[in-house]
């Protein structure tokens, strides 16, 4: 036997004492006892644990949110709970994971055959595309049932029930390839539900989806909870819509797991440390409440959503907000675009992929020194439009001008140096073997000698926090590091325009902030930064202007506040304003998009109120 010595590896951020949640009111569905996991044990017997002495219990029927920074081990924990690690992809474990078996009671996972285990605990992955394996909806839902030798007579009612639960009644015969992102994710969810598992883990189920797709999936989750006695564990960065739905939260920090505990207690106990220290996204309503509490405003009970925030701050509501509801709209006309020549000028552009017309007579301008957000539903043509900006695609009709000259008149190699395009998946951007060479490639293209390039590359890497990794392969960096590198290698040559597809996809709060600040700096230096996103919170906080694409046309251009004050545009493009837009109006009488600004106004109102001593 190799003696196993556990090293601590990377230091996890110290996080204060963590209160274990109250005793379970229902029998446990899942019990993890002193569980540790190692990806591999090197020959010298020293190993770095990915999970160490993890213990927690989750009750039957609970809905648990798993929180943690990007790369903190949330997915590793989930894959261990399901048994993919270590049984399928290797690694070593010790300790116990017990699952509630309908007949045998709480039973060690090891005593179950993999097939039986997957019928009790299962998992939905982040990208629906990765888990669709058949050509029609009904086959997809039936796939696991067929593999587990279920009789056809039993399969059909299960398909109907599962599709009904996820709101896809009538979709049985549809082709899986023709579904939208949200529909695909719900089909994948139905495929899991059809197995009637006792515990279902959802790994960032909405991260690839637009706001409407996200709502559809979360509505499906609500319906499931209403009708099925299922324990749900969800890993999610999009916390605004989830925090008030869950019963408890579980925090994965490095290799340790804290909780689960009541979400309100969790926030009450740790306050803004969760965001500032751990880099976790927290709901905007919570952010405002915690900021106010930090500045001395008494908030006895932490609200989890906008309604609760409004209730808890009823005494501080501005007189201007009296009688205002979320439905009230104060319309502002879209402001005029900047009064300077556009760097990119899209003039009446149409584009088709064979028979599918994606863009129809699009007009759009992007200016230097601004962050322009392009928003719209999945499949509305956002990426296609962005790929016309640097000549990757050429319009069927109309013209795209870059600094007054048509993209078709540019030499492609020259144009792409001026208009940098950054894909959503960072790995697709890498062309060199080391982090250093990735950046140096762009610098060398400017004609600099190696001696001139080196300090520039190193200073760039230092600014991104990647200097220590300069000799590593880009493929082995963490997701956040890969994202920063993919941006850096495109902007190092100082392009006039930077286009990013979903810049903060899958990133935690700190990583997203760092990246967006980098983009702000680029814009401040004179670049036009265009980003495509589904994240309305990102648009609200960072975009100077936004363009809304729906059915192949730009249906709106204006500032984020103007857009979120135009409900018919949001409805047409199937978008949603971030929660702060609605609750700020009910609190201070006008819509705000910045939690800091709202907090300041509320603080001023609070300071102006005479203290009652309550």
């Amino acid at each position: 036997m190799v003696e196993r010595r556990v090293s601590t590896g990377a230091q996890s951020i110290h996080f204060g004492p963590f209160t274990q949640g109250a005793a379970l009111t229902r029998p446990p569905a899942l019990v993890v006892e002193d569980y540790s996991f190692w990806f591999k044990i090197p020959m010298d017997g020293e190993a770095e644990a990915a999970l160490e002495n993890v213990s927690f219990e989750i009750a039957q029927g609970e809905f648990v949110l798993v929180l943690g920074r990007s790369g903190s081990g949330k997915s590793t924990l989930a894959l261990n709970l399901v048994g993919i690690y270590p049984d399928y992809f290797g690694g070593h474990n010790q300790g116990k994971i017990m699952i509630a078996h309908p007949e045998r009671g709480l039973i060690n996972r090891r005593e179950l055959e993999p097939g039986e285990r997957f019928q009790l605990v299962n998992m939905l992955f982040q990208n629906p595309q990765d888990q669709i394996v058949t050509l029609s909806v009904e086959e997809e839902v039936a796939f696991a049932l067929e593999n587990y030798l279920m009789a056809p007579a039993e399969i059909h009612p299960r398909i109907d029930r599962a599709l009904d639960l996820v709101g896809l009644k009538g979709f049985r015969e549809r082709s899986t390839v023709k579904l939208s992102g949200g529909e695909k994710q719900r089909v994948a969810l139905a495929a899991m539900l059809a197995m009637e598992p006792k515990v279902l883990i959802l790994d960032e189920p909405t991260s690839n989806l637009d706001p409407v797709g996200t709502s559809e999936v979360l509505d499906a989750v609500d319906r499931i909870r209403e009708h099925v006695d299922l324990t749900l564990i969800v890993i999610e960065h999009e916390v605004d819509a989830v925090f008030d739905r869950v019963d408890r939260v579980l925090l994965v920090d490095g290799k340790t797991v804290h909780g689960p505990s009541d979400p309100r207690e969790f926030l009450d106990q740790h306050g803004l440390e969760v965001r500032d220290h751990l880099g976790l996204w927290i709901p905007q309503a919570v952010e405002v409440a915690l900021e106010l509490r930090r500045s001395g405003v008494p908030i006895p009970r932490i609200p989890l959503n906008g309604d609760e925030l409004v209730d808890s701050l009823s005494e501080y509501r501005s007189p201007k907000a009296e009688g205002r509801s979320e439905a009230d709209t104060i319309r502002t006309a879209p402001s005029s675009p900047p009064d300077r020549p556009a760097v990119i000028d899209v003039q009446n552009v149409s584009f088709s992929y064979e028979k599918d017309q994606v863009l129809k007579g699009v007009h759009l301008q992007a200016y230097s020194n601004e962050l322009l957000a392009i928003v719209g539903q999945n499949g509305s043509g956002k990426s296609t439009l962005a790929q016309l900006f640097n000549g990757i695609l050429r319009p069927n009709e109309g013209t795209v001008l870059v600094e007054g000259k048509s993209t078709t008149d540019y030499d492609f190699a020259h144009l792409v140096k001026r208009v940098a395009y950054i894909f959503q998946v960072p790995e697709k951007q890498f062309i060199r073997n080391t982090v250093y060479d990735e950046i140096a490639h762009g610098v060398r293209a400017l004609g600099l000698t190696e001696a001139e390039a080196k300090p520039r590359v190193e200073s760039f890497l230092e600014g991104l926090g990647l200097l220590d990794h300069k000799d590593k392969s880009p493929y082995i960096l963490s997701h956040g590091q890969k994202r920063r590198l993919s941006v850096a290698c495109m902007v190092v040559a100082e392009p006039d325009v930077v286009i990013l597809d979903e810049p903060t996809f899958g990133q935690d709060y700190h990583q997203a902030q760092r990246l967006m600040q980098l983009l702000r700096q680029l814009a401040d230096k004179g670049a036009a930064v265009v980003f495509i996103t589904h994240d309305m919170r990102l648009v609200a906080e960072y975009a100077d202007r936004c363009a809304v694409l729906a059915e192949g046309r730009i249906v709106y251009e204006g500032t984020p506040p103007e857009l979120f004050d135009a409900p018919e545009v949001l409805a047409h493009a199937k978008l949603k304003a971030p929660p702060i837009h609605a609750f700020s109006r009910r609190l201070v009488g006008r819509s705000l998009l910045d939690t800091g600004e709202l907090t300041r106004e509320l603080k001023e109102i609070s300071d102006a109120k005479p203290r009652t001593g309550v």
Partner: protein
Amino acid sequence: MPNLELAYRAAESPFHRMTPSSKLLYVIGVSFVAIFNTNLYVALALFLFCFSIAAFFTAVPLKTYWTLGKVILPFIIILMIVFPFFYGGQATVGSDEIAIRTPFKDLSWAALGFGGLLALRFLALGVSGLTFAFTTHPSDLVQNLSKRGWDYRIVHAPVLGLVLFPAFLEMGREISITQRIRDLGQDTNPIKRKWVRLKHLAFAMLVLGLRNGQTQAMALDIRGYGAHKTRTFMRPAPRSRGGTIFGWTFFILSIVYLIYQWSPETMQWNMDFS
């Protein structure tokens, strides 16, 4: 986006009711005759037969066949035009009399017939292949072959390919775009640049393909793929006695015709096996 033109078209027709293996016998029979036949009239009859099947027994509009047919038509026309120049006396139908004079070579009626034979050969193969694709649900094929003793994981592999391959191609397209954007191999000559880009494309697709493949393997595993040696099928298997008789009859006739054609008296390619 994936090209779905080859996908199954749900309809009610004699060919939809046939078992996939009966249809496979038909396609194999057509393929044998089309490939080994050297008689223009037989090739024409075979094509018309396949066309009639497609038109009257599949309930799939001919327009749907044309959508894909037009893609391979230029290839067939090129065969028709180019191959007569390589005619070396293979018997088809037609005389040695000069039919067309060209700057390269004078073409006889037999040479033109040879070009026509090649075109009809590929048309018959194409139409029968499309008939199979349009009328056979992939799941029925998996079910049919599994019940005949094939491992269902192997038979399901083409279905997985249909679902996953388009995404793999899209990934390759995006990596190629990146190479162009970042001007990979900028400091080398065009041939070396192609080589550098090809190497990088292979590596990146391997890395990303493995990563995606790992997730897809997980998705299959946790849904019991391979948990048992067999599986059930919720779709009722198509069954048609007439279809089975048709499939076997056509297959046997095609073999008989090939034997007849291969006999020394009728062998038209004059192949000497002695």
